[in-house]
């Protein structure tokens, strides 16, 4: 680049700037600027043409004034004129003015584009660079429209200078970020990828930023970059620090480039090619080895550069998650950093370890550092580092060290920063629940938690304790005892009172034998807290009192006295007043039997996903411990909540306090089903979901012939079918929902089918006809396999064709006595199949009729003595034989149940029909 010679210094500009800086007040500054503006206006207006130097000077002054915060509404034309100058400094100032001041909708944009075009096509590298910088600095859509085609050509042209290539790559990256639709790499792709092989390190560094960005959008097209990147990386890593000369930074060879390469590799799965993979592993090992070497320099830049590469390498190792050896080494390396002097390093080490902990290979290795991490939690000065330490502890926790970790976290909680306390509480609660082997430990932990950080214990946490205590018989007595003891503290948190009230109300009888915790003592203890509590807690306590009356009749008079007092029965709070009045009446009017029924012990809670987990998920931003991992752990520990005890009748006894634990989710039965389902979704991979949906689609076709068989983002498959006797014809319609064509579209059926068009245009539909003949009775549906290419990816689909035995029914009409005669004929036990099942859908007579008709049999009216029942008859036509079938469906509206009986001449048919139908109602 040409150096600015002395003659180029603009004296006028310097004087102007120093004048402005010397201004005493704002007013003075404005005056000076106004004067200068008037001067420039008169100069620009002047008839005699200005020379390049003064133009440059005035444009510079305008730019300075603009940057001081004043509006500039002239001088653009002069700046554009500067662009066509041949002097570097003048051109530079022109471009500077334009990239700062010209907005994209200016009329001058055409002139500017023209000037840029000229510079781009000039052979002068500095001018080309200036133009490219201007494009990138403006970076507008218009710029992209004008130059998106030009720049890739410059980038890959053989005769372009290195520095220009560098600028072109970065300029293209900028344009791609603003308007990705305009930058189409298409034909340039492979040549851009090959820039990774460029001699010039600067070009490689610039190109790799571009490639990383592009490959994130369409990884397939840039797949080839992996092997190139690996070889480049290995060359850098294995080179001696002196080899790269200019690109060696404090004895580290090309640190920026290495980091970028490692980051690019993180966009892709581990390379499949063994040789490439071996080379990469070698590189990673070398990087890990180098970290062990003594530093070549004491300068902080040296260690920074080295560590940057190391951390990038570790995140690549974590990303691959397939090399146990490397993972463990990375973990050990990070372990060393845990005790490093640099706070930043400790922070990064903790953060990376969090992700390492979730890998099955390195989990154990991470666990070895538990002492260090605990120490960090206690002694670290910086709160953010402490937070990371807490995260890591949480992530590394498993059954073996749960007790230690929970204890440590609890002890830390006492001194923890307020900002992270709630999160810590949730984590402790989750860990305690997840890894509880011994429930008394769990109860102790949670009560401790409430004692230490009561304010931060959210509703969900104490709800959960109660759910667990109620669901587990073995801890109830212990819980009652512990709670009782905890409540004896002179000052205890309101949450503690809530838990105490609830548990004593339910299980106070279990400890009543001890004279130290006799009923009256229990009651007095609870009531001593009553006045210090808020309204909802008081309401809960009132419920506990009425339960006491049931549990311990001897306390009745005392409690009635309390309920009768003015402070309860005339309480200003409606809820409390109502409870007091109702409980008082209930206790005085109802007999002991009624009381015992009404105030029965709470039934076990239905199993559901821990609400605490949901809360933590909501609280946690990115960078948290992966929740999926927890989810999996949760499944392991699922038996904890006594999964088998899911009671369907849990809603049958509405207790006054049930609403407190209704958890805002409606009646427990309905809440249980969806939440269990969502757990399934969380746990299984997406494929499972797909499969699930497809199954239900299949069963829908038992009673109907036309409809949509399958649908996802790409493809929709419609179906139309007709059957006569033992023959059927099925039309399959494949609709392409995207705008891109599917190529090599093939379908294979395990029965023979006509081939289908191999190409489906975007948005188009093709049809396939399948002829079906029923040879003999069957139970498995034919499978249809669909393969096609969408974009680059091969898509594979397997669907069950909705061809079921009932499709070949011929309806048979018959009178009542004929029916019963035949019914009796088919009386062999294997000929009958019977099922009793719960209704899946509403019991609507019309819907049922329609479904039965869709089945293909004849629906016989006035046959069964009970008009509620449905009776059908039909013959299944197969090539080999005909199978007569009779069907009887008895709905029971009260119980929402059906009894389905099918009798047919062939036992397999009865069974199959029964299975098919049972899913329908």
């Amino acid at each position: 680049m040409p150096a600015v010679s002395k003659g180029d210094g603009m004296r006028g500009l310097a004087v102007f700037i120093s004048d402005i800086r010397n201004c005493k007040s704002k007013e003075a500054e404005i005056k000076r600027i106004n004067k200068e503006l008037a001067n420039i206006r008169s100069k620009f207006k002047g008839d005699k043409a200005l020379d390049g130097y003064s133009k440059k000077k005035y444009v510079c002054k305008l730019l300075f004034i603009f940057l001081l915060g004043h509006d500039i509404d002239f001088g653009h034309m002069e700046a554009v004129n500067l662009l066509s100058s041949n002097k570097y400094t003048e051109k530079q100032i022109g471009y500077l003015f334009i990239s700062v001041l010209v907005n994209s909708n200016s009329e001058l944009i055409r002139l500017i584009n023209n000037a840029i075009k000229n510079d781009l096509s000039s052979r002068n590298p500095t001018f080309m660079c200036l133009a490219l910088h201007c494009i990138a600095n403006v970076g507008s859509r218009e710029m992209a429209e004008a130059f998106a085609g030009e720049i890739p050509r410059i980038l890959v042209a053989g005769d372009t200078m290195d520095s220009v290539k560098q600028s072109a790559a970065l300029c293209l990256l900028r344009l791609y970020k603003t308007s990705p639709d305009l930058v189409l790499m298409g034909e340039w792709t492979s040549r851009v990828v090959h820039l990774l092989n460029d001699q010039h390190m600067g070009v490689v560094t610039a190109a790799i930023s571009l490639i990383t960005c592009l490959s994130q959008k369409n990884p397939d097209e840039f797949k080839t970059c992996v092997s190139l990147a690996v070889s480049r990386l290995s060359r850098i890593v294995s080179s001696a620090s002196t080899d790269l000369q200019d690109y060696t930074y404090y004895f580290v060879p090309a640190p920026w480039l290495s980091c970028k390469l490692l980051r690019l590799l993180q966009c892709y799965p581990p390379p499949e090619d063994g040789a490439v993979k071996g080379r990469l592993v070698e590189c990673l090992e070398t990087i890990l080895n180098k970290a062990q070497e003594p530093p070549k320099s004491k300068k902080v830049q040296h260690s920074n550069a080295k560590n940057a590469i190391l951390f990038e390498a570790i995140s690549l190792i974590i990303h691959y998650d397939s090399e146990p050896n490397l993972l463990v080494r990375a973990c050990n390396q990070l372990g060393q950093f845990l005790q490093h002097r640099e706070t930043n390093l400790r922070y990064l080490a903790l953060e990376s370890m969090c992700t390492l902990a979730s890998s099955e290979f390195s989990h154990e290795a991470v666990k070895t550092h538990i002492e260090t991490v605990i120490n960090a939690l206690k002694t670290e000065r910086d709160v953010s580092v402490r937070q990371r330490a807490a995260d890591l502890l949480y992530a590394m926790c498993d059954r073996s060290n749960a007790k230690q970790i929970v204890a440590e976290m609890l002890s830390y909680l006492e001194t923890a920063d307020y900002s992270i306390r709630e999160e810590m509480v949730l984590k402790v609660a989750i860990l305690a629940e997840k890894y509880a082997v011994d429930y008394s430990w769990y109860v102790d932990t949670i009560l401790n938690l409430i004692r230490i950080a009561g304010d931060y214990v959210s509703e969900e946490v104490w709800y959960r304790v109660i759910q667990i205590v109620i669901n587990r018989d073995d801890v109830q007595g212990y819980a009652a005892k512990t709670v009782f003891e905890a409540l004896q503290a002179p000052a205890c948190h309101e949450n503690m009172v809530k838990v105490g009230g609830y548990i004593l109300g339910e299980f106070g009888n279990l400890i009543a034998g001890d004279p130290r915790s006799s009923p009256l003592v229990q009651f007095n203890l609870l009531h001593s807290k009553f006045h210090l509590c808020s309204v909802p807690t008081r309401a809960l306590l009132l419920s506990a009192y009425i339960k006491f009356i049931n549990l311990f009749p001897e306390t009745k008079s005392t409690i009635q006295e309390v309920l009768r007092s003015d402070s309860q029965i005339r309480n200003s709070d409606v809820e409390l007043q109502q409870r007091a009045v109702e409980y008082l009446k209930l206790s005085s009017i109802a007999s002991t039997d009624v009381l015992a029924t009404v105030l029965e012990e709470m039934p076990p809670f239905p199993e559901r996903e821990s609400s605490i987990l949901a809360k933590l998920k909501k609280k946690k931003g990115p960078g948290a411990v992966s929740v999926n991992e927890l989810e999996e752990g949760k499944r392991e520990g699922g038996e904890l909540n006594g999964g088998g005890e899911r009671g369907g009748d849990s809603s049958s006894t509405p207790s006054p306090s049930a609403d407190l634990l209704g958890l805002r989710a409606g009646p427990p039965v309905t809440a249980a089903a969806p939440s269990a389902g969502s757990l399934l979704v969380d746990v299984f991979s997406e494929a499972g979901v797909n499969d699930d949906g497809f199954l239900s689609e299949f069963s829908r076709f038992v009673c109907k012939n036309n409809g949509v068989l399958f649908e996802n983002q790409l493809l929709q498959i419609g179906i139309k079918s007709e059957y006569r006797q033992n023959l059927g014809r099925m039309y399959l319609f494949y609709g392409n929902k995207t705008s891109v064509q599917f190529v090599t579209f093939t379908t294979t059926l395990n029965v023979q089918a006509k081939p289908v068009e191999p190409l489906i245009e975007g948005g188009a539909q093709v049809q396939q006809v399948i002829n079906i003949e029923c040879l003999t009775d069957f139970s498995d549906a034919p499978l249809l396999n669909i393969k096609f290419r969408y974009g680059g990816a091969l898509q594979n689909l397997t669907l069950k064709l909705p061809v079921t035995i009932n499709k070949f029914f011929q309806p048979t009409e018959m009178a009542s006595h004929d029916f019963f005669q035949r019914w009796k004929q088919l009386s062999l036990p294997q000929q009958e199949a019977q099922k009793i099942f719960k209704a899946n859908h509403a019991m609507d007579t019309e819907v049922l009729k329609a479904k039965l008709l869709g089945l293909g049999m004849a629906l016989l009216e006035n046959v069964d003595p009970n008009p509620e029942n449905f009776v059908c008859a039909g013959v299944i036509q197969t090539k080999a034989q005909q199978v007569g079938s009779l069907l009887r469906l008895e709905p029971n509206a009260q119980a929402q149940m059906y009894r389905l009986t099918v009798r047919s001449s062939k036992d397999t048919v009865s069974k199959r029909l029964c299975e098919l139908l049972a899913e329908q109602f």
Partner: protein
Amino acid sequence: MIGGLFIYNHKGEVLISRVYRDDIGRNAVDAFRVNVIHARQQVRSPVTNIARTSFFHVKRSNIWLAAVTKQNVNAAMVFEFLYKMCDVMTAYFGKISEENIKNNFVLIYELLDEILDFGYPQNSETGALKTFITQQGIKSQHHTKEEQSQITSQVTGQIGWRREGIKYRRNELFLDVLESVNLLMSPQGQVLSAHVSGRVVMKSYLSGMPECKFGMNDKIVIDKQGKGGTTDDSGKSELGGSGKQSIAIDDCTFHQCVRLSKFDSERSISFIPPDGEYELMRYRTTKDIILPFRVIPLVREVGRTKLEVKVVIKSNFKPSLLAQKIEVRIPTPLNTSGVQVICMKGKAKYKASENAIVWKIKRMAGMKESQISAEIELLPTNDKKKWARPPISMNFEVPFAPSGLKVRYLKVFEPKLNYSDHDVIKWVRYIGRSGIYETRC
């Protein structure tokens, strides 16, 4: 109740900081600097509320005076106090400038201690203050013991603004009527708003404890007297063009020496004057204002690059009177690239730093007119914004009161000493100045 008082220079550095109440912390000083003096947008409101603390500020040249309070105080009172404070400082050391404040900062703290007590304003009468706050040590030596003992009785007594035993060889009295006239006129010559705010400033050198009575052509008084049959002596004055008899005063305030009870009951202004200079009253009128000048603008845009401006000014008062220091300011568009001016009288110049043509005339008699014409060349810009055409403003000074106020009498009675009203030499002067005197174009 003012919690504290700060004085800053133009950079926001604190020159004086006096905190009167505990509720104002030290950070209040910085809060004002950050949020007002160094604010990104210029703060135009004189009252700023930052974190439940109110800041009242006035600016004198480059100096900021800010009063701070956490309470709900009477804002008018605070500003009155700040203005008074400025007056006091001016009376003590002249112009309020950074240098003067730095040189007199002991004095300022002493003054602040005296005129504010726990945030409550006290006696701020310069004349009285000067008797006991004397930084010029020499002066205090002139006071005899007797005089010094009198200070206490004066300051604590009923007439705090005048001490006893003043003697002059010549009893003399100066009275100035100072008015500023404000106007906004439409291009067609229609008055959109006009008012006059005036002050009566006196300088009295009278012996003893004289009782004065001031009379002017207040409409209420004249009407009352008209009923009583006494004719007014307006023939004495020969001011103004309209020669109208009386003026309607919209509102007025008086110096503390004026007996308000008497004004309320009889509408007569009687008082025992302080010694030296003071402002007797302030008033405002909005009706029947004599506009000393009429500005007739004519602006023509010739294409996109040229503007022709012609402005005529007409003086509208008695031909025998002379207006002085006339200055007409014609704003120019922001894209002006060149100006040619021709004027018949005075000097005109394009001032780029102020974006205006400034036309100055030294003197102009009444009932005359003068004209300026200018050609303004414009630079075409890509901004489609139209020029907002700010109004043409004017400055001048005339030797009469545009409100029409006339002094009818000022009588002095001193029963104890033997001089009568006729022995007092009285001087009366009228000065009318322009306030914001603008005509749209």
